[in-house]
């Protein structure tokens, strides 16, 4: 079955085609097709997993490919490769996709283009699965772009809203800029090794087919693509805006799966990054900057989804830091746990939005605990998991990252990542306190607030359970019991498996970080009151404004696009119209016309003039003939 894992992608792809063609006319606009597809994919994943584990590690990675094209010596094969990293990604994608499909039935009820929403969701799932299954970089790139397209379509789902359209455009174009780098990198790798196949590239690079400088440059290009997709600074601007899309989409695409594609890509190609001189250090720096930057920005956001968005960016930074430390397992493990609790938080936010009839500003909420107990409880679990409370999922994965950084990156990075951890705890608890605790800020909203139905709360509960237990996968015993070779570090690794041992000192330190951040938030926003926070903001208004305006990145980019890019375009258009066309083309036409104007005076219309010209011509020709021939 593992070698037929392509079926995972084929099923939703087929569902996409079917829903696009017939969805509008089906009963319930075909949402059951989507849910059944997601369930089928979820079930299929377990079949793949069982078969994969059954084959044993000697047979890994499981390969299956077909001849694609050949032009002379340029041969292409397309196929899938299933290894441990793929399995982790498949687990995340299929689970979250299933939950999100179910949740969407409740969330999107009565929304416009209901069928189209589900159709595109299937397209996304298909392409995302293809992305992680691809055995070669070309297929990966194809899936990568289609994933971006589905993201574009879903962000812009409410296209009547100008802001949604702009956000969709921004997301597509920003990631596209990164993708230029990715495509260049892929082709450079092909140029050096003669293949797109990832394993073959590894072998070629091991054999020294690529010089170190060249490999470094290539990997930097590829890193650009990963940074674009995973919203690393300075490409992060699109992700917060992408919250214009329906909230389940934010959960699936912009928290759990698509945005981690960049992390996946780096993890997948980590052997190349390792061989490429200082590339790992670059990844670490990118991750650190992103984690700290977006953690800080999240302090000052007041829209629930925006806070979660910046939190996602920050956590993606954590994953980059882990990979930059050279540890696939730490990065992938955080990706794995983060997917569950961040999807939970986003779906929780969606539940809040539906429960309060489309309000998502923290300033208007507060005190939802009583009105929406299930949402509040699951949201709390998700928040604590994100903040890293022992023994929830986030604790273990963050612990792994701290451990990796401590071992491979030295004190400064460790210190900074600790600060980022405190930030995480702070903004997460701030979000929870301000939304769910204290008194309602707006009685009118509060009085209409209802808990959402089971179709939405059940996925929350399911994800909450995963957020509690997913971290336990790190233990050897747990993995062993489930049929894996052992804990997470013994399953996903680059060079050699690592058995997990609890480092109580580190665990204590990590808990201290959580307590610090959570306490700060609790003290500042005690009982949902804002007086201390307001005082803090007024104490340093410039700093607060800097955070609230996200370090002016959007303004900077806008100015850059308006002034430089569009300005250049105006210059080129002007040049084309006036220099090339009006001067060059029309100018030469006008010159011809003017020459005609001058020459036409020779045409007197008087026959004797012509006769004279003829006679003169004959005489001249005669003389010439005599002179030359004589």
């Amino acid at each position, binding site marked *: 079955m593992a070698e037929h894992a392509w079926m995972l992608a084929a099923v939703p792809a087929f569902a996409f085609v079917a829903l696009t063609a017939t969805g509008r006319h089906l009963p319930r606009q075909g949402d059951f097709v989507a849910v059944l597809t997601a369930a089928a994919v979820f079930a299929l994943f377990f079949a793949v997993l069982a078969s994969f584990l059954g084959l044993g590690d000697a047979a890994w990675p499981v390969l299956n490919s077909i001849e694609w094209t050949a032009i002379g010596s340029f041969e292409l094969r397309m196929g899938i490769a299933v290894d441990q990293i793929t399995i982790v990604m498949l687990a995340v994608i299929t689970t979250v996709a299933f939950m999100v499909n179910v949740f969407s039935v409740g969330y999107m009820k009565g929304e416009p283009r209901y069928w189209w929403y589900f159709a595109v969701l299937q397209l996304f799932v298909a392409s995302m699965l293809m992305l992680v299954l691809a055995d070669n970089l070309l297929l990966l790139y194809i899936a990568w772009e289609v994933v971006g397209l589905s993201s574009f379509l879903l962000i812009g789902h409410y296209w009547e809203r100008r802001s949604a359209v702009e956000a969709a455009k921004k997301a597509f174009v920003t990631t596209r800029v990164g993708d230029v780098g990715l495509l260049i990198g892929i082709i450079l790798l092909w140029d050096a090794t003669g293949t797109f196949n990832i394993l073959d590239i590894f072998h070629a690079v091991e054999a020294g087919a690529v010089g170190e400088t060249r490999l470094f440059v290539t990997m930097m290009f590829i890193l650009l693509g990963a940074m674009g997709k995973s919203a690393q600074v300075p490409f992060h601007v699109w992700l917060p805006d992408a919250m214009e899309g329906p909230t389940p989409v934010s959960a699936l695409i912009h928290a759990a799966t698509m945005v981690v594609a960049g992390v996946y890509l780096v993890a997948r190609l980590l052997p190349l990054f390792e061989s490429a001189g200082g590339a790992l250090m670059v990844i670490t720096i990118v991750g650190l900057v992103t984690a700290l930057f977006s953690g800080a920005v999240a302090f000052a956001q007041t829209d629930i989804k925006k806070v979660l968005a910046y939190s996602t960016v920050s956590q993606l930074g954590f994953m980059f830091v882990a990979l930059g430390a050279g540890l696939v397992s730490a990065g992938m493990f955080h990706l794995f746990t983060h997917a569950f609790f961040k999807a939970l938080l986003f779906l929780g936010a969606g539940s809040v939005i539906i429960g309060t009839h489309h309000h998502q500003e923290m300033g208007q909420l507060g005190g939802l605990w009583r009105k929406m107990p299930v949402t509040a409880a699951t949201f709390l679990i998700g928040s604590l998991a994100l903040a890293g409370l022992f023994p929830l999922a986030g604790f273990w994965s963050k612990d792994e990252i701290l451990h990796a950084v401590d071992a491979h990156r030295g004190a400064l990075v460790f210190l900074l990542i600790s600060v980022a951890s405190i930030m995480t705890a702070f903004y997460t608890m701030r979000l929870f306190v301000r939304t769910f605790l204290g008194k309602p800020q707006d009685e009118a909203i509060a009085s209409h607030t209802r808990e959402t139905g089971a179709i939405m709360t059940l996925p929350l509960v399911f994800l909450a359970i995963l957020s509690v237990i997913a971290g336990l996968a790190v233990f050897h015993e747990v993995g062993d019991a489930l049929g894996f070779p052992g804990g997470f570090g013994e399953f996903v690794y680059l060079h050699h498996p690592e058995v997990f041992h609890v480092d109580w000192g580190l665990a204590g330190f990590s808990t201290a970080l959580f307590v610090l951040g959570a306490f700060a938030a609790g003290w500042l926003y005690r009982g949902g009151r804002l007086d201390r926070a307001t005082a803090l903001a007024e104490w340093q208004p410039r700093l607060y404004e800097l955070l609230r305006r996200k370090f002016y990145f959007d303004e900077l980019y806008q100015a850059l696009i308006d002034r430089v890019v569009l300005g250049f375009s105006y210059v080129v258009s002007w040049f084309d119209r006036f220099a090339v066309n009006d001067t060059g083309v029309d100018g030469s036409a006008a010159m011809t016309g003017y020459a005609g104007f001058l020459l*036409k005076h020779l*045409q*007197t*219309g*008087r*026959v*004797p003039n012509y*006769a*004279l010209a003829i*006679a003169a011509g004959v005489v001249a020709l005669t003389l010439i003939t005599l002179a030359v021939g004589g």
Partner: protein
Amino acid sequence: MVPLENYLVLSGILFSLGVYGVLARRNAVLVLMSVELMLNAVSLNFVAFAVYLDPGRATGIVFAVFVIAVAAAEVGLALAIVIRLFRNRSTANVDEAATMRW
């Protein structure tokens, strides 16, 4: 026998007279007559060469006959035009018939 050169000189003189007439005269009828002179000069050349250089065949003479025929047709056409011109403009001065231009 009269030498060939004599014919050629005569033909040259006739042709030059024709050229002079075409260039110098302003009356359309006279211009036409001058053209006829030029054509006749050419015909004379044809016949002379035919008789002197290629006595067995009549190629040059045939040419001369053609020239005469074409000249006749041409004069018929040209005179018709001149008459139309005179009817419309009350003049046969070629300098005043200058509408065939830009």
